[in-house]
């Protein structure tokens, strides 16, 4: 009883410094727990895949050696890893923006095609001086991605139309339109294979292999663009009024509306900005990876952004790490398929298990309460 009357009690005299330190340590502990949960999930899903291979009578050690060391086994494979990570980081960021407002945009796939197409028109047919030949197409692609992202955003926020259905339908339409453009517009008359001409040399993103004099495959300075985008998206979400509005809506939409935030406009804008970011991934595939348009240029990238964003717990600063990690698995899967004749689809299975475990709130809470109990005891 006596203790509650002493002036050092925080409830009596508010110690600002101690309070700040407490908040900071609490935040640090949350971050550590988040990291532990994520790592645990990954290890658990990999273990599950290992078990599946074991039961099926495959050689899981051989398969996992290929999966987990493959991307580093040869320098060109490392290049493939960096190339894939660049794309995944960008689409992961795109998904993060919408996720923060608790919206599920699955439109990244279509937005990549739109970005690649718009940039291709400029990059292939319009000669431009260096730097401008990259900057202008990127801006144009982002504008197009913004508009194509705005459509499902407006449909969702002003009409209440299901964004999952609308973004998926838009993807299907865009993919077919792209296919049409590929066969009838971009492929030169009389060409053998279905592919466009190369983009202008000034528009090509410099290959890392040329810069470092190593066989780094198709990896390119797009990775730098991706990292710049990480900072841009972080500033946007953490340090601007728009970011505050998005986070408030994500926490509690009704409260946000009650607090005077124009929730409809902000949600639509979040969709649109996600589209603008995703379209940059399309530009990277065009100008950095293939240096021309090819059929299905963004094939198989539909849901990858979601995993990257989820693993990063919607924190843009963590997206580069999770993007690198997840593309490591993807590239490792390709190598595993070649070397151990285990289908790359096992990576899809791992991906699904990761999403399931990461969204299972009960598991996360269980880890947290356990941790707290341990902390209290210790």
């Amino acid at each position, binding site marked *: 009883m006596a203790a509650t009357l002493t002036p050092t009690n925080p409830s009596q005299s508010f110690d600002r410094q101690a309070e700040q330190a407490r908040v900071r340590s609490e935040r640090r502990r949350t971050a550590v727990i988040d990291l532990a949960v994520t790592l645990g999930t990954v290890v658990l899903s990999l273990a599950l895949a290992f078990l599946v291979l074991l039961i*099926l009578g495959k050689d899981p050690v051989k398969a996992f050696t290929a999966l987990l060391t493959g991307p580093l086994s040869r320098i060109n494979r490392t290049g493939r890893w960096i190339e894939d990570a660049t794309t995944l980081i960008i689409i992961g960021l795109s998904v993060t923006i919408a996720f923060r407002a608790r919206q*599920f945009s*699955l439109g990244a796939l279509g937005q990549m095609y739109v970005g690649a197409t718009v940039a291709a028109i400029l990059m292939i047919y319009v000669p431009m001086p260096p730097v401008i030949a990259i900057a202008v197409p990127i801006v144009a692609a982002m504008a197009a991605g913004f508009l194509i992202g705005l459509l499902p955003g407006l*449909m969702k926020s002003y*009409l*209440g*139309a*299901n964004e*999952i*259905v*609308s973004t*998926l*339908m*838009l993807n*299907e*339409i865009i993919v*077919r*339109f792209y*296919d*049409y453009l590929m066969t*009838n517009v971009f492929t030169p008359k009389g060409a053998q294979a279905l592919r466009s001409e190369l983009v202008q040399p000034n528009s090509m993103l410099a290959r890392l292999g040329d810069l470092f004099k190593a066989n780094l495959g198709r990896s390119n300075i797009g990775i730098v663009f991706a990292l710049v985008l990480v900072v841009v998206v972080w500033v946007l979400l953490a340090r601007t009024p728009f970011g505050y509005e998005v986070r408030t809506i994500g926490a509690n939409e009704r409260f946000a509306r009650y607090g005077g935030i124009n929730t409809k406009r902000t949600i639509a804008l979040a969709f649109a900005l996600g589209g603008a970011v995703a379209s940059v991934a399309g530009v990277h595939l065009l100008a950095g990876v293939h240096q021309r348009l090819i059929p299905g240029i963004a094939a198989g990238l539909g*849901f990858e952004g*979601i995993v990257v964003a*989820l693993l990063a717990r919607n924190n843009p600063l963590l997206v580069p790490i999770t993007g690198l990690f997840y593309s490591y698995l993807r590239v490792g899967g390709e190598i595993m398929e070649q070397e151990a004749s285990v*289908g790359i*689809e*096992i*990576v*899809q*299975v791992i*991906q*699904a*298990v990761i*999403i*399931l475990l990461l*969204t*299972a*709130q*009960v*598991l996360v809470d269980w880890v947290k309460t356990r941790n707290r109990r341990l902390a209290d005891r210790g």
Partner: protein
Amino acid sequence: MDQVLHVVFSATFIAAVLRVTTPIVLPALGGLISELGGVGNIALEGIMLVAACTGVLISVYTKSEWLGLVAGVLMAILFALLLAFFHLELRADLILSAIALNILASGGTIFVVFLLTKDKSGTSTLISKQMPFIQIPVVKDIPVIGEIVSGQNLLTYVALLATAAVAIFLYRTRPGVHLRAVGENPEAARSVGINVRFNQYLALGLSGLLAGLGGIYLSMGYVKFFARDMTAGRGFIALAAIYLGGKTPLGTLIAALVFGAADALSVQLGNLRIPSQFVQMIPYVATLISLVVYALIQRQRVLQRQRRFRQAQTV
């Protein structure tokens, strides 16, 4: 244009519409039940894939289409209950876990097929069974109508009967009303003693059953093999059919027929000089427009209700 009209008003075209509508209306009815139960199922696509794959594989090894059907549908229900378990017991986000299950189905089915056949495109090298096509006596001899109504796959008739069954279940039986009550307002339902969780499991389980039948139809009726991602977005078009159909069984059937007609038309128009890609877009564009139309109608209804409420107050 003349050619198009000629095509549309032929008996073969209408029969074709019924064929392509079947794998849309079955998952749509399933999705409708889960939607009305308050647990909208986005994993219809994955559930269909799992059922289609299981059905084919079991029919290959047991040489019985019926065992294939039963196994496929059971797997579909299990898959749907897995979604229910993650959402209801582990409090996972319903949409995200459904997306995960779609990915799991897409990767898992091909993984298994690859193990068994060393072929990643599908099971075309295996000899699988097909659900029977039914010739209805007497009816089959009636000109035009016979061509449409008779000779369809068993599951096409099942789809039509299921529409009626789902309507009766939802609006004329006690469990159906309870299920809708849970979807409308879980707290209110709980307060009058309805087991909320049981009904949510039931809603998702039934959606698995119906989507599973749709999947079986794809691989054991529409064609006779399983192919990679053979659902091709039908699980999502089914979702759109629910909305376009105003969340009623009959409306859902009609909406599914509209999508089916668009799909069948795209096959027929392939012969004309319209680029195939544009023709293939039709169902998706129709879905997108229907989403907007449905949303606008809903909004109009809400506004009307508000106006009536205000009028009632002023009087």
